[in-house]
Each structure stands twice: as structure tokens, then as C-alpha cells.
């Protein structure tokens, strides 16, 4: 079994609940040993499935029908994490052959670390450009996306209008 880096699903402080339920299903119900890829990725998909279920509750109560945008959006996040784990694993292995140790984090100021972070920011932005409409568009069509100008921005616009 390949040993993927970053396989341990980090505990989102807010979603501690869902992480706990993910551990329950992976380690207690399915009996996958802790620390293995099977356990980590089962937890990952369970957490995002449950997150979709929570948002499904809100969508259902408003739409009065089964809508799956939340599930699709949530499970796509798990797929993206699986994909990026694989890419990070392959990239690290490849760079190690070239003598470059990649540890993109706050303490890594090497050129490789900086490049990795810039690539990461671009990837995350483009990922959400693709998946955000899946989550938001149905709600926007219902009227949940109404965005009137907020007071500070309105004040700035009015002030600018008086000057101009």
C-alpha cells in the first residue's frame, strides 16, 4: 500500500462533530485500523457526505423537494482532496529524486516552497470557480443570493457620487 503524505484528515474545529462521526464509521463500524489509508479516506468521504446532509436539510426546507447540489458540492471537495493528495505524493517523490525536499508551509521559504504555495493558491481558486456554482446557483434562483449593497460600501459610493 502506498504511504500517501497528508493522509490524516485534519480536524476542522467547527466540523469536529462530523470528524468524530467519520471516525466512528471508519474505525468502529467498518473496523478499518486507525492511521491507514482506508480509514483516513473513509473518514474523509463520510465527513463530506454528512456535511452535504446538513446543508441538504436547509435546501429541502426551502425548496420542498430533493435537491442534490449540496451533496454534489460536498463530495466533490472530498474528491478534490483525494486528487491533490495523489498529486502532492507524486510531486514530492519526483522532486526527491532531483534532490529537492518540498515542505510547503509557513516555515518553508525556499523557492520550491514559494512556487508550491502559489500553484496551490491558483489551484484552490480555480477549483472553487468550478464548484461554487454547483452549491450556490439553485439557492440564488430561489432568492437566497440577494446581495444588496451593504452600509459601508453604500456610504463610500454616496460620498464618491457627491465628489464626482
Amino acid at each position: 500500500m502506498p504511504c500517501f503524505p497528508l493522509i490524516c484528515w485534519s480536524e476542522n474545529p467547527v466540523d469536529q462533530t462530523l470528524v468524530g462521526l467519520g471516525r466512528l464509521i471508519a474505525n468502529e463500524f467498518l473496523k478499518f485500523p486507525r492511521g491507514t489509508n482506508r480509514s483516513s479516506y473513509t473518514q474523509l468521504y463520510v465527513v463530506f457526505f454528512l456535511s452535504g446532509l446538513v446543508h441538504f436539510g436547509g435546501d429541502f426546507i426551502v425548496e420542498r423537494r430533493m435537491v442534490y447540489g449540496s451533496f454534489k458540492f460536498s463530495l466533490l471537495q472530498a474528491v478534490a482532496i483525494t486528487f491533490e493528495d495523489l498529486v502532492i505524493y507524486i510531486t514530492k517523490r519526483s522532486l526527491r529524486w532531483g534532490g529537492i525536499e518540498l515542505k510547503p508551509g509557513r516555515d518553508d521559504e525556499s523557492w520550491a516552497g514559494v512556487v508550491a504555495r502559489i500553484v496551490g493558491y491558483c489551484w484552490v481558486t480555480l477549483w472553487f470557480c468550478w464548484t461554487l456554482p454547483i452549491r450556490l446557483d439553485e439557492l440564488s434562483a430561489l432568492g437566497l443570493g440577494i446581495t444588496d449593497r451593504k452600509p459601508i460600501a453604500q456610504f463610500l459610493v454616496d460620498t464618491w457620487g457627491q465628489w464626482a
Partner: protein
Amino acid sequence: MRRYPWAEVLVFEILYISILYPTPHHAYRVVLLAAAVYLAMQIYLNLEVTDQLATTHSVGCAIASKFMFMAYLLLAEGSFPDHWRRVRDEVNAKAGAGGSDKLPSNLSSAKKLWWMLDIAYSVRMIGWVQEPRDCMPPHPPPSRRTFLWKTLLKFIMNTVTADLMISTLALTPSFDHRLHDPADGSETYLAAVPFFRRIPYTLAWGIGTGASISAMHNALAFVCVGLGQSNPTLWPDLCGRWGDAYTVRKIWGYVL
């Protein structure tokens, strides 16, 4: 006229809190849980959608997330209620002989009620033995005055950021159904914007939403600590650093 079901939602909230009363009698919890499930179904199936769509939507999400939290507390970690202990109880327990009188099921009735209220709204488990260690933003130092000053500054910063970011989305057909024909489908909203031109919308929506929830957290922390009801160390930031948002895993695991 459409009526918002405040009474049903309030009764559900009371049931939710009561289920977490630290008694070892499981029959008590089963009965209340059955009542909560019945009431939740009534709310989901019969709630009239009010003009306050965002409120209605948040009721649906909140009920579902409360069931998740109950499942976590009752099933996921250890036996309820004695598995769940506050750090301050733990410290006191060590000072006493054996400490078993500090287990939640052995607390006095008044303390049980406070314990019940405390755990019902401790989704982040801060101040509990079960608090996650490796991913929480750092706990603030205990100085009340410093905390209040820093929190006020953060509140102002987050409020301004949220206001400006969300205002950049104002009156755009990518989000606002008032600018669409009623027959328009959902694919005519953000998905209709060319891919690379979605970048400013995506950034504004993400940063604006993160700043909004952080501002609410700052306001709550300011009031609770300012009134002397809470310790500053129990109020670490809600969100992590945006600088860490360079993988999808990190953005969901640390930043948001």
C-alpha cells in the same frame, strides 16, 4: 399570511438541550429523542417558507446539525455523559480524592443543568477534555482588557471586509434573482459567467462569507467576555489564516 414556526423551533431547541441532561438513564434520552425526531419531521414537512429565506434555510441546516452533534455525543466517542468532561472539572477532580464525584452523572442538579447547557453549545469542544489539539487557532492569553481590545479591532476589520466584499456582488445577475426572468433556470446564474471571470466573484464570496461569520464570532466573544461571563482563553479565533488556503484540504481543515 405565512407564519414563522417560532414555537416549534423553540420546543425543538428545549428538547435538544434536555436530551443532553447528564443522567445515566438511557430511557429518558430515548423518549426525548423520539419526540425530537417527530417534531423535526413536522418542521421539515410542514414549515411554511417565509419571506426570510435565509432564516428558513438556516433553520433546516441547524436542525440537521443538531442531530449530527447529538449522534456524536451519544455514539461516537465514549459513554454518555461521563466521557465528556470539562477541563476545569478535571482539574478539580484531580485535587479531590479520586474525583469520581466530579463525573457529570454525579454532579448536583444545578451543576448538571449548567453542564447540559454548556455541552449543548460547545460544538468546538473548547474547554473540554476532548478539545482537538492540532488544528485549533491558538488560545488567547487570559488578560481580559487585551482580549477585548484585540477582539474589537478584529470585529471592525471583519465587518468592513464582509461589507465591502459582499457589496461587490450586489445587483449582479450571477447572484440576484430579481435581475432574472422568473423562467430562468439556475444555470443562468454564476455558472453562466465565463470560467476565468468567475474568479473575482468566487474570491469576494469566499472572503466575504468567512469575514461575516468571524465578525459574528467576534461580537459574541466581546459580549460574553465583556460581561465577565466567560474567560478569554475559551475564545480562540473561529477561522484560521487565509495564507494557509493553498490546498482544498487545508481550506476545509484549518482556514474555514
